[in-house]
C-alpha cells in the first residue's frame, strides 16, 4: 500500500527526488567520465544531488589492508556528514567507495562495541535511518526503469554490451545487499531499457586485479586480458562498468582496443545529453568509431 502511494507521488509531474551525494576522490581525476555523466543523467531524470559537505576519502583498498579501525572511521566521517545534511539517502556512484561505506555501516548497525568505538573517534552519533545506496540501485529501484525509458531519445539498438560488475558492488552480498553475487542482472536490465543488447558471458563478476595494477602490472594485465577477450568472444562491442578502478584497469591494461564505458555514459548517449563530448573525449580507447557506426556519434 505504502509503495503504491510513494509511486503515485513520484509519478506526479515535476516531482524532484533528492539525495545526498558522495562523489569520491577520483570524481574529478581518473573517473572524470563517470562523475560528469552521472551528474548529467541524474539532472535529466529530475534528481537533485546534494554533495556531502567537506567529504573525505573512503579509505579505499589501502586503508583496510593496513589498519582496520582507520578503514571504518574514514567512511564514518562521511556518514556523519550525510546525516547532518538531511538531504535523503546517500548515493554513491563508485563501486569501491560504496563497498567501504557499506562495510562501515555494517559495523555501525550490527556490532555495538565497534559502533561505540567509531562514534567516539569520529565524534558523532550514528542514526541507522540513513540509507547508503549504490547509484545503480537508485536508478533501478528508486527512479525506476520506466522513467529511464521515457527519457531515451536515441535508442542504443544494435549495440552489444558486456555488463561487467566486478567485485565491490556484489560482494560480500550480506554487506552490499545488491543483486546476485554470481550472475547479477542490474546492469543488464538497465542496458536493455536503453535499447542495447547485453551479451551472455561468464566473466561479469571476475576480479580485474584492482590496485595490484601499480605493483604487479603483469598480473593485472593477465586478469584483464582474460576478461576483455571473453567479452569480445561473447560478441560484445564494448564493456560497461560502474567502478573507477575496474574501468581504468580494463582500459589501460588491454591490447585489443575494446572500449570500456561507465553505464552512465551510455545513459547520457541514449538521453542525448549535449555535454557528452566533454567526457567521451577523455577515454584512452575512444568509443567514437563504435558510436558513429551505430549512428550515435
Amino acid at each position, binding site marked *: 500500500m505504502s509503495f503504491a502511494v510513494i509511486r503515485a507521488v513520484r509519478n506526479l509531474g515535476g516531482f524532484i527526488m533528492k539525495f545526498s551525494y558522495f562523489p569520491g576522490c577520483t570524481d574529478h581525476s581518473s573517473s572524470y567520465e563517470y562523475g560528469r555523466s552521472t551528474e548529467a543523467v541524474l539532472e535529466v531524470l529530475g534528481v537533485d544531488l546534494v554533495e556531502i559537505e567537506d567529504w573525505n576519502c573512503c579509505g579505499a583498498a589501502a586503508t583496510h*589492508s*593496513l589498519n582496520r579501525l582507520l578503514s571504518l572511521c574514514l567512511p564514518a566521517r562521511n556518514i556523519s556528514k550525510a546525516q547532518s545534511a538531511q538531504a535523503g539517502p546517500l548515493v554513491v556512484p563508485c563501486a569501491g567507495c560504496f563497498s567501504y561505506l557499506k562495510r562501515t555501516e555494517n559495523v555501525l548497525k550490527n556490532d555495538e562495541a565497534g559502533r561505540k568505538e567509531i562514534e567516539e573517534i569520529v565524534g558523532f552519533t550514528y542514526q541507522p535511518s540513513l540509507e547508503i545506496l549504490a547509484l545503480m540501485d537508485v536508478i533501478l529501484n528508486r527512479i525506476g526503469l520506466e522513467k529511464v525509458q521515457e527519457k531515451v531519445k536515441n535508442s542504443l539498438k544494435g549495440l552489444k554490451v558486456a555488463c561487467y560488475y566486478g567485485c565491490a558492488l556484489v560482494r560480500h552480498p550480506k554487506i552490499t545487499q545488491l543483486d546476485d553475487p554470481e550472475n547479477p542482472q542490474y546492469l543488464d536490465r538497465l542496458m536493455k531499457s536503453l535499447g542495447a543488447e547485453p551479451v551472455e558471458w561468464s566473466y561479469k563478476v571476475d576480479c580485474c586485479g584492482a590496485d595490484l595494477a601499480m*605493483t604487479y*602490472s603483469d598480473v593485472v594485465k593477465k586478469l584483464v586480458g582474460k576478461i576483455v577477450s571473453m567479452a569480445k568472444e561473447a560478441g560484445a562491442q564494448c564493456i560497461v562498468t560502474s567502478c573507477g578502478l575496474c574501468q581504468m584497469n580494463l582500459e589501460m591494461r588491454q591490447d585489443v582496443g575494446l572500449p570500456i564505458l561507465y553505464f552512465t555514459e551510455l545513459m547520457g548517449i541514449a538521453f542525448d545529453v549535449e555535454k557528452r563530448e566533454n567526457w567521451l573525449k*577523455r577515454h584512452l580507447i575512444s568509443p567514437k568509431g563504435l558510436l558513429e557506426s551505430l549512428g550515435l556519434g
Partner: protein
Amino acid sequence: MHIAINMEERMETLTNVEKANITFLEEAEKRSGEKLSLCYQCLKCTAGCPTAPYMDIRPNSLIRMIQMGMKKEVLESGAIWFCVYCQTCGTRCPNEIHIGILMDALREMAMEEGVHAKEKNIHLFHEAFIQSVRRGGRAHEVTMLMDYMLRSRDLMKGSLIPGVKLFLKGKFPLLPSFVKGKVEIKRIFEKCTKEK
C-alpha cells in the same frame, strides 16, 4: 564418548608447543572474527581466487596452517599481501569464512610482530596511499604515486606509458583537492594509530 572436549581440560594435557599452536588459531579467530576451525578444505576459496596462482601459499593452505599453529610461516608469507579483497572466497565459502577479513587481520598481526612484509612494494603502495589521505583528507594520484616511487624505488615500468597517457587526457590533475576539516582528519588518524 564425548567428542566435544572442554577447551580448558584439554589445555592442561597439552604440551607447550601444542598450546602455542592453539593460541595462534584463537588469536587469528579473535582478531578476524572468523571461525577458522570450521574449514574442511573444500578448496572453493582457492579455486575462485584471482591471485592464488601468484601466491606462495594458497588461501586454503593458509587456513590449514593457521589451524596447525604455523604462525611464523603464515605471517611471513607473500600470500597475505597478494589478496586484493575481491571477496570471491568469502562469498563462496560453505562455512561462511570471510577470508578477505582474515587477510586484513593477518597483515595487521604481521606488522605488529614486526615481520618484514614479503611483498614489500604492495605494503609500501598501501602506505603511500594512506599517507596521501592523511595529508589532505582525500587521495591524490600524482603525489601518491611519486611518494610510492620514492619509497619503493620501483620505477613502475609497466604503468609509466599508460600513466602519461592518462595525464595527457587530464585525468591526473597536478593540484590536490584538500578537505577543510584537516583537524578532524588528523584526529581520526591519531586515534586510529595510537591504539596499535
